[in-house]
């Protein structure tokens, strides 16, 4: 299945443009959406989840606008909003039963089967009786994914799921997303570049509501190939360097700044070319580190 975002714009209160003509195509697999806080990621995801109406533009599934049959589209999606609390007083089974009801799964046998299936996929089989309030952050995110998987939707929309998770929980969650994403269209929004690097073959970058890049993750990295340099400079030279090139990172070792920058040519003495990462490419695409 192919999901196409076509010229989507969204404005609030006339003059606040949250999204400005975003267009890209989401193939099967995990698709990454990255951008700074306030870049328009959540707005876009909420539009894709049909919770928000765009000011202009449309979303197409296999070439057909979703507005032609919105209820059918809604049956195709699973959605995990940002920072959702997931009803802490319930245990996972009760919570999923309620969500199944919201999704329109009425047949009790089907509901029971779906709940069990999703509990197992999320790896929460041993935590059935525990209330969600007792779950760790990672378990809560997995519970969130479990509800998104109810009814076997084709499209799964996940908004910043790894924020605040410890490394182990984060990895566990990403593995889960990755395994689920083999046959589905998963849209994963995050501002953690490493999450995208690890599991998303395709990526879209948003900055201030505008789409800066859309395509393969490797292509994104290649966009700064042979353009990334590293140099040890003297303290105080950072500002001068920022005027000449896009600085992607500065670290200080023994008081000396070590700078990574993107430029077609070396702009300071002693620069050596190094292989770029997605983070370098991203910082370059959004015009440097925000201050």
């Amino acid at each position: 299945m192919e999901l196409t975002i076509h010229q989507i714009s969204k404005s609030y209160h006339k003059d606040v443009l949250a999204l400005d003509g975003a267009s890209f195509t989401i193939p099967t697999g995990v698709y990454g959406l990255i951008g700074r806080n306030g870049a328009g990621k959540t707005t876009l995801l909420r539009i894709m989840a049909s919770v928000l109406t765009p000011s202009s533009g449309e979303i197409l599934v296999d070439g057909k606008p979703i507005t032609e049959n919105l209820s059918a589209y809604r049956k195709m999606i699973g959605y995990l909003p940002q920072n959702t609390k997931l009803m802490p007083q319930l245990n996972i089974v009760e919570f999923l039963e309620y969500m199944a009801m919201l999704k329109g799964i009425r047949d009790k046998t089907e509901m029971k089967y779906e709940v069990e299936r999703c509990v197992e996929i999320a790896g929460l089989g041993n935590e059935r009786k525990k209330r969600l309030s007792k779950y760790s952050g990672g378990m809560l995110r997995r519970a969130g994914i479990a509800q998104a998987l109810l009814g076997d939707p084709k499209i799964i929309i996940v908004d910043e799921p790894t924020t605040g998770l410890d490394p182990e929980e984060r990895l566990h969650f990403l593995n889960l997303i990755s395994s689920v994403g083999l046959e589905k269209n998963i849209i994963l929004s995050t501002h953690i570049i490493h999450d995208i690097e690890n599991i998303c073959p395709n990526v879209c970058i948003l900055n201030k509501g505008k789409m800066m890049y859309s395509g393969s993750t490797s292509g994104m990295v290649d966009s700064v190939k042979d353009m990334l340099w590293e140099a040890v400079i003297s303290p105080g030279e950072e500002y001068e360097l920022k005027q000449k090139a896009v600085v992607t990172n500065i670290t200080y070792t023994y008081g000396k700044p070590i700078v990574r920058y993107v430029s077609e040519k070396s702009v300071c003495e002693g620069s050596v070319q190094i292989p770029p990462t997605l983070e370098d490419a991203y910082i370059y695409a959004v015009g440097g580190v925000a201050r």
Partner: protein
Amino acid sequence: MKFFTYYIYKKRWLILLAWGYVAVLVLPTPYTDFFSYHESFEMYMSFWAGILSACILTSEDETEFARCYGASFPRLAFGQWLPHFLYPLLTAFLSCPLYFAFHDLRPQGGRDFSSLGVRYMTLLFSVFVTFLFLSALMLFLRVVVRNVYVSFAAFFVVYFVFYEFRRLLLQGVYPRQLVACDIWLTGFLFERAFPVTKDMWLGNRFGYLILSISLLLISYLLLKHQQNRTISS
């Protein structure tokens, strides 16, 4: 707003406060007369009941899911509520005889409510209609309107109109009973509408049932005690 929601959500004692108010209305305390003759206070408390109800509107997460999955008003209403519908009605039905044991609902210059059957049915009708009405209103606001401030305002306006209309309809049945019912029903709305509040009432629904019956029983015994003292003196 979020702070208030958090408060309601986390602090069960607020719900118990509502119960305290019901108790003040029901129990023959020195304050009963004061509350009886100050309708403005009752109106204020009714609004407070409304606030309690409207606070549920801020449960954005659930609404977000509901909208995304196309869970319409009826699906939310009947899928989640209908199985629980009988329970509050049953409680109300059981409690009514006790309620009437110490409340004279005879109006002044209004319809004659002296027949127990008529009184019983009137209050039950009021309970039922209020429950249906507030449930429908709250669900409508949550799922359709969504904007919490608009919903808040709408709830107050509609509730106020409903309150006055009901008073007119019942031709002077003392409003304090009705206000007590409202708060009582608000509690049900809280518990039944949203599974997040599942165990608010002392752990579970039976806790609530026990609390309901206990309160009414205590008030009945106190009244009897008071009557005996009056007779003996």
